């Protein structure tokens, strides 16, 4: 396997992706990611020199809204699925200040 994923990398990816993995899951994730990256490395066989990266397939541009208020108070609907609600707000564990 050409790509060896270190413990640090998995730890770091866990922070980025906000995932907590058991030791077993970490080992599996290292293996899976290494294999997947090996597979993806096939792309290096392709000469893409000078090729513009394509994010949108069609040359559609300038899709705008006019600056007009169209929404009213929809807070009841927005809060309808909140796991915890207080004072018309979403509740989260205290954030560090």
């Amino acid at each position, binding site marked *: 396997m050409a790509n060896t994923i270190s413990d640090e*990398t*998995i730890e*770091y*990816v*866990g922070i*980025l*992706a*906000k*995932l*907590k*993995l058991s030791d077993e*899951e970490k080992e599996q*994730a290292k293996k*899976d*990611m290494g*294999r*997947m*990256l090996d*597979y*993806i*490395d*096939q*792309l*290096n*066989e*392709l000469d*893409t020199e000078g*090729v*513009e*990266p*394509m*994010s*949108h*397939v*069609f040359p*559609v541009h300038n*899709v705008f*809204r006019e600056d007009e208020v169209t929404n009213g108070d*929809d807070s009841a*609907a*927005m809060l*309808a*699925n*909140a*796991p*915890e609600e207080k004072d018309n707000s*979403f509740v*989260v*564990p*205290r*954030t*560090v200040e």
Partner: protein
Amino acid sequence: MTELDCTAVELGKKIKAGRVTAPEALEAVLARMDRQEETLHCYVTDDRENARKKAETVQAQIEAGTLSGPLAGVPVAIKDNMNTAGLLTTCASRILNNFVPTFSSEAVKRLEAAGAVIIGKTNMDEFAMGSTTETSYYGVTRNPWHTDHVPGGSSGGSAAAVAAGECYYALGSDTGGSIRQPASFCGVVGMKPTYGTVSRYGLIAYGSSLDQIGPLAQDVTDCAAILEVISTHDPKDSTSVKRDDTDFTSALKADVKGMRIGIPRDYFGEGLDGEVKDSILSAVRQLEEAGAVVEEFDLSLVKYAIPAYYVIACAEASSNLARFEGVKYGYRAEGFDGLHDMYKMTRSEGFGPEVKRRIMLGSFVLSSGYYDAYYLKALRTKALIKQAFDKAFAKYDLIVGPASPTTAPRLGESLADPIQMYLGDIYTVSVNLAGLPGITVPCGVDSKGLPIGMQLIGDCFQEKKLIRTAYTYETLRGAFAGCPGKGKEGGQA
């Protein structure tokens, strides 16, 4: 055969003609569900009480002459990644186990306005990540043709429901083949339109630049009629395309004279099951005999589509799925210690292994130091793949190939080796990368008794060529055997 054993469009006509009613059609479907769901598990949620009310209302409107249109009164199933106001929408994930959207997706609204009766929400791979519908948190769906086999995925619930008569048609979504492959595995017709044809508003995103909603149906006529209803220019979706050629049913003509069909040699080489290959090539010969001009060619770059697809789809998914963290909706873990622990526990408990795998890969390929090597490389590859298709479509009206290298695998076979499973997407993902339309039509059954699908790929906005060719083929083929269990008392166990 009863009056109710028919396609969606046929049913619509019968309801309009007063030969059957919308509530009767719904009850027939619900009765089948009662017999089969325990085995097949096509649905995550069924909404039969509301469906019954809706069927009554629609029937009254049809009788009063205030509602017409080919799909009025016809029962439909919706993939569980499309928002339905007031109806649980889970994406087959634990993390949305209690999510009741307050707005419906645009495609669903279009169907409702056309008088569709929504039966419920169909099972799928969690967040549409998978090719077998086995990654659902709510259990697997089984292939109605052979219940030891998967229905394909990720729209496996929709495909199986159509095949098993648990709806007259269904909506699915296709990010890398998620409509076409399960349609092929279940012996139904599935169509992924050109990117931007159906609004993505209300579709819970997996890979935003690749996702597209489309129909799964019993035949090409249904597909064209459904697509005609759901395609729209939606100002709420910036990537929605304004088109004035969405009268897709006008392309339902049995005539392929002069239609130039390209057969990519790269789609028929190593890795393709012999029975699948023979079946598709014989279908192509039928089209050729009917006047199509068939030619083999080299599409090139085929093997690079999968790695490019997984980089792009996983990168977008890692960002699209960041919103699920237990603050605004859905599952929230208990017993956490502070904010970040809440995020991590909620997401670790809420997402299944395949979703985590893709989120991690996506986070990694976008992370500092790897963006150019992986993400930009994939976007450049995508540009080359698009060029390869442009070149092909300069010569051909459409491209024909398989939808999958094999027929439906047995349950449990695919998940053991993710990369092997990803390789199964080889004939479908490039279509999403290039934004093209594709349709799969059943063209045979293999020795195991599993259906084989033929995939037709068109240039952007050339759905009508696909519909015309697929329709012609269907006419040549004659009635498809149909799923052995469908409609039988007791279903197939």
